[in-house]
């Protein structure tokens, strides 16, 4: 069966070919990696049929996880399954590992990509909150050969909207390797344990030195048009000792930093309750590890 979704399917082997194709088609072509979101948008007619799909999963530079200069680079074609197979990533960024493991099913994770998850920019993307806590950057290549790097929080503009021109592609996402003084956690609340879109998800990183909190990063998903870093909650935690941190206003400050909506999965007020409880519980859990 064909549903008249696209007219041509291209699988370039070089980045320069991708740019030529995007130049040629203008905004009538779409980049496809795993395609698990894009395919459904097309087959379920949420977007108009396109002239061409440009598959980037055969571009050698996009298929690897690299460690370089204290940073991890995850290429545009790297699947969730590849990320899960990396014992290195499991060790240095366990919150990303956990988040990825909670996405969908094995069948989806075997073809879907982390970069695709970010570019798709669902507010509930599970790969996003950990990356926001790592202060990740998105690497963008333009048709002219220019490369630019953007912090992830500037890249994702709103619901399903990112700062990407029609002739630009994301080649990778990167982040500095957190050092061992940081502890991290990830939680996802959904209507099922698997195959569920998050009702709320949260990633936290916290650093304690000499029993005092010296760093905190809290990223909340599915409770605003984009992932939100709860900056006032983070700042409020700095300086508390591990024993006194329970008195910090961080959970309430986190609640006041998000704007969830009522939707078919949950009400806004339920989500606010989740934010308060998740921030409090995850902080307790992380601080107990010191």
């Amino acid at each position, binding site marked *: *069966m*064909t*549903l*008249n*979704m*696209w*007219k*041509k*399917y291209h*699988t370039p082997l070089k980045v320069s070919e991708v740019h030529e194709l995007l130049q040629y088609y203008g905004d009538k072509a779409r980049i*496809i990696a795993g*395609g*698990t979101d894009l*395919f*459904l948008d097309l*087959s*379920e007619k949420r977007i108009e049929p396109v002239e061409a*799909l440009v*598959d980037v*999963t055969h571009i050698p530079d996009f298929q690897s996880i690299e460690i370089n200069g204290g940073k991890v680079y995850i290429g545009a074609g790297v699947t969730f*399954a590849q990320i899960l197979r990396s014992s290195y990533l499991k060790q240095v960024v366990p919150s990303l590992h956990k988040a990825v493991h909670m996405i*969908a*099913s*094995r*069948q*989806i994770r*075997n*073809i879907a990509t982390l970069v695709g998850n970010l570019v798709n920019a669902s507010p509930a993307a599970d790969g996003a909150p950990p990356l926001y806590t790592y202060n990740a950057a998105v690497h963008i290549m333009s048709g002219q050969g220019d490369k630019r790097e953007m912090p992830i929080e500037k890249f994702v503009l709103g619901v399903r909207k990112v700062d990407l021109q029609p002739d630009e592609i994301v080649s990778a996402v990167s982040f500095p390797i957190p050092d061992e003084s940081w502890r991290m956690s990830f939680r996802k609340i959904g209507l099922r*344990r*698997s*195959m569920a879109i998050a009702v709320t998800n949260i990633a936290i990183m916290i650093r304690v030195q000499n029993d005092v909190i010296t760093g905190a990063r809290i990223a909340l998903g599915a409770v605003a048009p984009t992932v939100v870093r709860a900056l006032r909650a983070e700042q409020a935690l700095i300086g508390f000792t591990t024993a006194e941190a329970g008195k910090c206003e961080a959970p309430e400050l986190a609640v006041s930093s998000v704007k969830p909506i009522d939707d078919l999965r949950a009400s806004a007020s339920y989500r606010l309750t989740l934010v308060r409880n998740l921030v409090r519980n995850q902080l307790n859990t992380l601080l107990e590890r010191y």
Partner: protein
Amino acid sequence: MQIEFVINNENVQLEIEPDEILVSIIRAKLGLTGTKIGCSEGECGACTVLLDGLPVNSCLIPAAKVHQREITTIEGIGNMQHPHPLQIAIAQAGGSQCGYCSPGIVVSAYALLQEDAHSTKEDVIDALTGNLCRCTGYNKILSAVLEVSK
């Protein structure tokens, strides 16, 4: 457009429309109807096949994507004349009623056992999260797969 790939250890060349879907060429062009279409949106796993050894939802994959790759369908794992131990175990345990989910379940379980021949209950549950069954309640499927993986 032309694509070439290996399916169940056989080389195949096919002329396809650029936007044909993998599950439909497997069923309609190659006549391999063991793979089922359940939801057409990658949620139920009835369409599960192996792509380069890894389970994927064939209802979500453009056929063009499998050019020069290797596919295994349920027919490549077992059949009436030579059933796979997983198929025998699931059938005998009562882990198949209408049978519609069963090929996808066998493919996912097969992939798990290829990766780890002695899986735990948690591993099996994790491997089967993408395969829905409306009939059996899963327990008999689980015990059958665990039996084979002992």
